[in-house]
């Protein structure tokens, strides 16, 4: 009883010390916004991820005007006309006002509610490209939003799977010791001895080409998790070794608790702080790995969007100098990873028991 009160006090202290870290809190808020945008992607995006406007390929970001000859006005855009290969000229005569909450292409929100409401759009036949368009004339802003669903959640799912594997493997290896321990740890060593990206490349090449994008997503998650569990399992094994002869574990064994219960209920919780920190710190590397794979064309395949495969159209040096907006997905990867790093750093400071609090 007293123990649990103490534990709660410690937790409150930790939360307080985390909340005092302004940078980490800001990073957390930015991440929440990014995730919300990803969830509400079909609503926020003016178009669906594959809607293409063939006559407007490599269209530069549309300029939104806030004033006209009569001073301030409702935001509007000019219609543009193609005057050459990927060259556009705006037609000052034809204004198209920006509209909020417009009806557009139909989508299923959260896979349940049918809707065709979009946050914004323009009326008329000129599409709005907030961040430009790609080689098929698809709106980059919309694709970024849809791509963020892949890029942001893939790391999340992968870390969940690899953490589960690591907890199981590390827990079993540490608890049973002997031959089991030896086999699991040697296995982890093998996985760790192959340069991670080489392993990823080889595994990604195994994937057949004719599978649905959802299944591919799942397989890539599995691959990421497969090469990520080893390092974590090793540390968890060490922590399990340290606590498995503590009195409370011995007591649990003495009253005849099953091994499974002892491992899951009594031993693994002691590793929770480490697991949380490690998972937050590891998420960015998964995001980078996924985008790297997709960038090389081995990850998420067109027409599905992910930040990595959107960047792969910028691989050509002449393209990025002519159409620099193709680099935008890279900045989003950077922003996401940066905020995860800042958040992870803050969490580590707040949760690390070695840290002395000046509360």
């Amino acid at each position: 009883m007293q123990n649990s009160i103490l534990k709660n006090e410690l937790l409150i202290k930790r939360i307080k010390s985390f909340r005092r870290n302004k940078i980490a809190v800001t990073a957390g808020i930015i991440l929440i916004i990014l995730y919300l945008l990803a969830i509400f992607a079909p609503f926020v995006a003016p178009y669906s991820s594959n809607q293409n406007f063939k006559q407007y390929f490599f269209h530069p970001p549309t300029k939104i005007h806030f004033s006209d000859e009569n001073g301030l006005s409702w935001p509007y855009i000019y219609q543009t006309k193609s005057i050459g290969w990927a060259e556009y000229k705006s037609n000052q005569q034809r204004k198209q006002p920006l509209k909020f909450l417009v009806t557009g292409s139909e989508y299923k929100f959260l896979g349940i509610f049918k809707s065709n409401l979009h946050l914004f759009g323009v009326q008329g036949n000129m599409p709005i490209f907030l961040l430009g368009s790609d080689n098929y004339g698809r709106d980059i802003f919309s694709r970024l939003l849809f791509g963020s669903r892949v890029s942001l959640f893939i790391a999340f799912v992968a870390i969940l799977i690899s953490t589960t594997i690591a907890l199981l493997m590390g827990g079993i290896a540490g608890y049973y010791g002997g031959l089991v321990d030896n086999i699991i740890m040697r296995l982890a060593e093998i996985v760790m001895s192959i340069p991670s990206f080489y392993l990823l490349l080889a595994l990604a090449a195994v994937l057949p080409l004719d599978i649905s994008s959802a299944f591919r997503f799942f397989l890539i998650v599995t691959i990421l998790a497969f090469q990520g569990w080893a390092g974590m399992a090793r540390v968890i094994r060490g922590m399990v070794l340290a606590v498995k002869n503590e009195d409370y574990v011995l007591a649990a064994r003495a009253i005849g608790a099953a091994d499974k219960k002892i491992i899951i209920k009594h031993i693994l919780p002691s590793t929770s702080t480490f697991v949380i920190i490690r998972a937050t710190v590891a998420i960015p590397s998964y995001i980078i790995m996924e985008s790297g794979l997709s960038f090389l064309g081995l990850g998420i395949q067109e027409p599905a969007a992910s930040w990595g495969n959107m960047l792969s159209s910028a691989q050509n040096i002449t393209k990025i100098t002519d159409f620099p907006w193709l680099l935008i997905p890279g900045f989003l990867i950077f922003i996401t990873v940066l905020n995860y790093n800042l958040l992870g750093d803050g969490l580590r400071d707040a949760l690390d028991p070695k840290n002395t609090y000046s509360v």
Partner: protein
Amino acid sequence: MKTYLIRRVLVLIPLLLAISLLSFFIMQLSPGNYLDQLRLNPDISSDLINRLESEYGLNQNIFHQYLHWLWQLLHGNLGESFSYRIPVTEVIGSRIANTFILSLAAMIIAWGLAIPLGIYSATHRYSITDNFLSSFAFIGLSIPNFFFALILLFLIVKYSLPLPVSGMTDIMHDFMSPTEQLLDILRHLLVPAVVLGTASTASLMRQMRGQMLDVINSDYIRTARAKGLKERTIIYHHALRNALNPMITLFGYQLSSLLSGAALTETVTGWPGLGKMMLTAVRGKDIYLAMAGMMMGSFMLVIGNLISDLLLALNDPRIKYD
């Protein structure tokens, strides 16, 4: 020390064997093989394909294929590359050397910057420079290698800087004098090495700062200060050596991320290294080349780990392997 070394090398044998097994079976899992691509080509007769099939032993069962490959591997023969039609050893040698040059250059940049900057940050904790360096480290940590490389290339082209954007040598390379050739390679090396180097600089610098702070706050440093030693002597003589120890362990870990990071950086900057070769091999189902790439990458990694363990023992008299 000697027995330790022998034991470590002996342990490597089953490890490498297991890696070879794993890389072989992963490549076997991949759908289709190189000959399937040739089969689709109507210009190639089925006779030729059958001949190639028996030549490479692709018609035998996989265990036989594995044992055959392993046997050849032990004799220093890594098989023949399908796409280059020359022995893998000939393709891979120069690639390993190139990746090695790139990694070495990146490492020199990273350690050369990270250690002094880390020490400075730790001794001037919370100063403006320290905060600036910390922010720089976070940015460096967060920017994906391939994206950073793209941005650098973009800047080079945009501001027409006199730097090459791709490859390792100029077209005129063969007609240059040896000094010019060296300079030419260094010019091409600059972008990939800076990209890879800064990525590791960021994390190393933070580690160095942390280690240094831990050491500076310990009792024996207080004693040294109380004795009235010069601050320089305290930092460089007493603190630095102890702060460096954990960094040496990092050297081994760093190698893994260096090799992985190099793969993407090489692809973007066209540096003809192991990672770029691995990608083409994997894409083209050139299995012997891909397996050799994986084996060589792993080999470099385990050797690097071994070296870092030995360095640790050399630097720290408390660590004794027996």
